[in-house]
C-alpha cells in the first residue's frame, strides 16, 4: 500500500457568483520513502492541493468538494479537527516557501522547535531542548547553543529555511511536504538546502513531496513527477520519462521554455504562447487546448482521458503518443 494516495481530489473556492476550481480532480500517490514532485506554474493548484492534504484550506471560501486523501489507508478528509492535528507534523510535516513569514518573529527558535516535540511526542522541556540542539546541528547550523536562543530576524534566508527543515524533522514524520522550499533563496544556497533535504529524508526513510515550478530542480532530486496545469494533473511519469519522452504538449512547452545553462544558442527558447485559463471559467474540453500547437477538434469538446503511454507513464492528451515523437524529432533534443 502506498504511503499517501490522493484520489479525485477537488478543492473549489466560492466567490459571490463564481466558483474557482483550483484543484479539479487530481489523483496520485507516494510510496514510503519516495521523493515525488508536483510541478506546475503559479495558479495551477499545486499549493492548494498540498494544503488540502493537511486540511489547511481556509473555509469559507474554500471547500474540498470531492475526493479522498488516504494516509496508510486512513482517509484524512474524514478526520475531526483534533484527529487531524495528530497527523500534522507527527505524520506529515510541511516546509513552506517563505521562511520569513512561516516562523514567528517574536518567539525564539528554541521555543518554535520544541513546541511540536512537547505536544506531539510528549517530551519534557529538557528532552525537547536537547533534541532541538541536535536538530540544528543536523541541518548544518553552527554554534547551535547560541542560535537556539536567537530570533528569526537574526538568521539569513538560507538559515531560516534550515530552521524550518529542523522543525519539520523534529517529530520524525513519515512524509515531508516541501512547497517551493528554495524559490526565495540564492542559487548557491538553493543547492545546499535541496542536498540537505535529500540526504536527511533518505537517511530517515521519509517520503518527500516536492512542490515546485522549476523542472530543473526536479531532474536532480526526484524519482517520479506529476505535472499540473489549470487544476489537473496532465502528465505523470518517472523522471526519465518526463524529460526524455514527454507526452503532453504542455510538458514539451515547459521543457522548451526553460533556459538551460548547458545550451548557449540564443534562439533555442520556444515559449508557449498565451496564458493559463481563468480557473473560474474553465473550458469544457482540454484546459490547454487554447495554447496547444497539436490541437484537434476533439480537444475543444471533450476533456482528454488519461492515456497510459507506458507502464507508470500517463498523459491526459488525445494526441499523447504523437506529441512524444514530435519532441524527439526536434534536433535540439536529439
Amino acid at each position, binding site marked *: 500500500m502506498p504511503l499517501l494516495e490522493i484520489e479525485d481530489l477537488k478543492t473549489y473556492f466560492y466567490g459571490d457568483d463564481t466558483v474557482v476550481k483550483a484543484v479539479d480532480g487530481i489523483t496520485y500517490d507516494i510510496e514510503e520513502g519516495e521523493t515525488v514532485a508536483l510541478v506546475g506554474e503559479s495558479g495551477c493548484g499545486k499549493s492548494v492541493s498540498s494544503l488540502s492534504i493537511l486540511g489547511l484550506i481556509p473555509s469559507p471560501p474554500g471547500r474540498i468538494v470531492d475526493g479522498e486523501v488516504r494516509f496508510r489507508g486512513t482517509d484524512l478528509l474524514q478526520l475531526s479537527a483534533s484527529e487531524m492535528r495528530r497527523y500534522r507534523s507527527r505524520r506529515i510535516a510541511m516546509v513552506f516557501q517563505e521562511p520569513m513569514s512561516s516562523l514567528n518573529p517574536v518567539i525564539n527558535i528554541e521555543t518554535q522547535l520544541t513546541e511540536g516535540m512537547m505536544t506531539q511526542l510528549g517530551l519534557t522541556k529538557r528532552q525537547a531542548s536537547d533534541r532541538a540542539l541536535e536538530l540544528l546541528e543536523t541541518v548544518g547550523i553552527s554554534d547551535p547553543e547560541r542560535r537556539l536562543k536567537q530570533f528569526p530576524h537574526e538568521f539569513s534566508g538560507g538559515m531560516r529555511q534550515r530552521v524550518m527543515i529542523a522543525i519539520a524533522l523534529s517529530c520524525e514524520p513519515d512524509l515531508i511536504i516541501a512547497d517551493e522550499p528554495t524559490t526565495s533563496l*540564492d542559487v548557491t544556497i538553493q*543547492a545546499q538546502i535541496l542536498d540537505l533535504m535529500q540526504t536527511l529524508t533518505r537517511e530517515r526513510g521519509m517520503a518527500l513531496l516536492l512542490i515546485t515550478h522549476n523542472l530543473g530542480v526536479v*531532474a536532480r532530486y526526484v524519482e517520479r513527477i506529476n505535472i499540473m496545469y489549470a487544476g489537473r494533473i496532465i502528465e505523470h511519469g518517472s523522471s526519465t520519462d518526463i524529460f*526524455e519522452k514527454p507526452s503532453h504538449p504542455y510538458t514539451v512547452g515547459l521543457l522548451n521554455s*526553460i*533556459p538551460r545553462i548547458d*545550451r548557449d544558442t*540564443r534562439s533555442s527558447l520556444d515559449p508557449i504562447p498565451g496564458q493559463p485559463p481563468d480557473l473560474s471559467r474553465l473550458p469544457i474540453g482540454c484546459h490547454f487546448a487554447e495554447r496547444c500547437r497539436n490541437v484537434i477538434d476533439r480537444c475543444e469538446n471533450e476533456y482528454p482521458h488519461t492515456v497510459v503511454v507506458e507502464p507508470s507513464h500517463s498523459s491526459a492528451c488525445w494526441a499523447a503518443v504523437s506529441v512524444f515523437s514530435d519532441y524527439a524529432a526536434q534536433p535540439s533534443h536529439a
Partner: protein
Amino acid sequence: MLDSRSQNTIADEHGGGDQTVLIDIEDLSVEFPVGSGALFSRNRAVVHAVDDVSLTIYKGECLGLVGESGSGKTTLGRAILRLQKATRGRVRYEGEAMDEMGGRDLRNLRRKMQIIFQDPYSSLDPRMSAGAIIGEGMSIHKLAPDRATYSRRVAELLEMVGLNAEMARRFPHEFSGGQRQRIGIARALAVEPDFIVCDEPVSALDVSIQAQILSLLTNLQFELGLTYLFVAHDLSVVRHISDRVAVMYLGRIVEVAPSADLYRNPLHPYTYALISGIPVPDPRIEAQRERVVLGGEPANPADPPTGCHFHPRCPFATEQCVVEKPELREIDSSRLVSCHRAEELTLEGV
C-alpha cells in the same frame, strides 16, 4: 587594467557586438552609510555596495551582470543611470563623463538610457492607464508633436511588445504579470533609447511567461539595435540573452568573459560554484555532472572578509587569498578574472 583600445579588439574578435564603446565605467564605488545613531559621528560604518568597479559596455551588445542578492548588481545598474549617486569613480557615455553633466545634457542623456524593473506589480502606477504609462516619457521629452502622433505611437509600442492597441485604455490591475512586464518594456522603448538596464526583468514571472519575455527582449534588441545591461541572479537566463557576462560578488567584479567561454570554462571559483549549483533539466546529464556545493553564505557586505572577498567560502583558498586582494586582471585577450590562482586551477563548466 586594460586600456579601452585593447578592449575594443576583444569585442571585435568575439563578435560580442560593435567594437565601439558605449559606456565606460571607471573605478566606480557606491557606499551606503549603515547603523542608526552614527549619523553625526565621524567614523560612520559604510557598506561598499559597489567597490571600485571598472567595466566596459559595447554598442549593440548584451552584457549580463550576475550575482547573488547583496552582490551590488542592482546598485551598479542604477549608478550607471545616475539613479544612484556614486561615491567615487565615473561613468562615460559615448566618451562623455556623466558626472560633469547637468541640466539639459543630462536630461537628453536620460532619454537614451532606460530601465526595465524587476517587479511588474510595483513598477506601474495603478492609477494610470497603460497608454498613459507608456506615453508619459514621450510627453516629458516632447517626442510627439500632436495628439494623433502620440496615440499612434502608443498603439505601435503596444503592438511591438505583443499587446493589442485597444489595451491602452486599461489599467495595470487588468493585466497579468507577463503583460505588465510587456507594458514596462513598452514604456522603456517609448523614448527611443539606445541603452536599457534590464534589472531582473523575468525573475518574478512563471517559466513559460519568462521564455516569452526573453524572446521579446532578444527580438527587440536586434530590430532596434539596442544595448542591454541584463542584471540577473539566474545564470541560465543570462546565458540565453548575453554576449558577454560579468560576475559580481560582494561589490566587486570577479570575472568577465564572452558568454560561451564563461560557461564552458569558468576561471573564478565563484563562477564555477554558481554554474555547478544550477540544475540541468535532464536527469542523465545531472547524474554525471561534477558539482561543488559552497559552504557558508555570502558575507555581510558591511563587514567583508579580508583579501579576496570569496576566500571564506572558496574550496581553493590559500594564505595569499586571506591577506591580498586579487586585482581584476587579463587572462587572455577576451577574459578578465580576479583570482590569485586562476592559471593553476582547472574548473569544469557545462
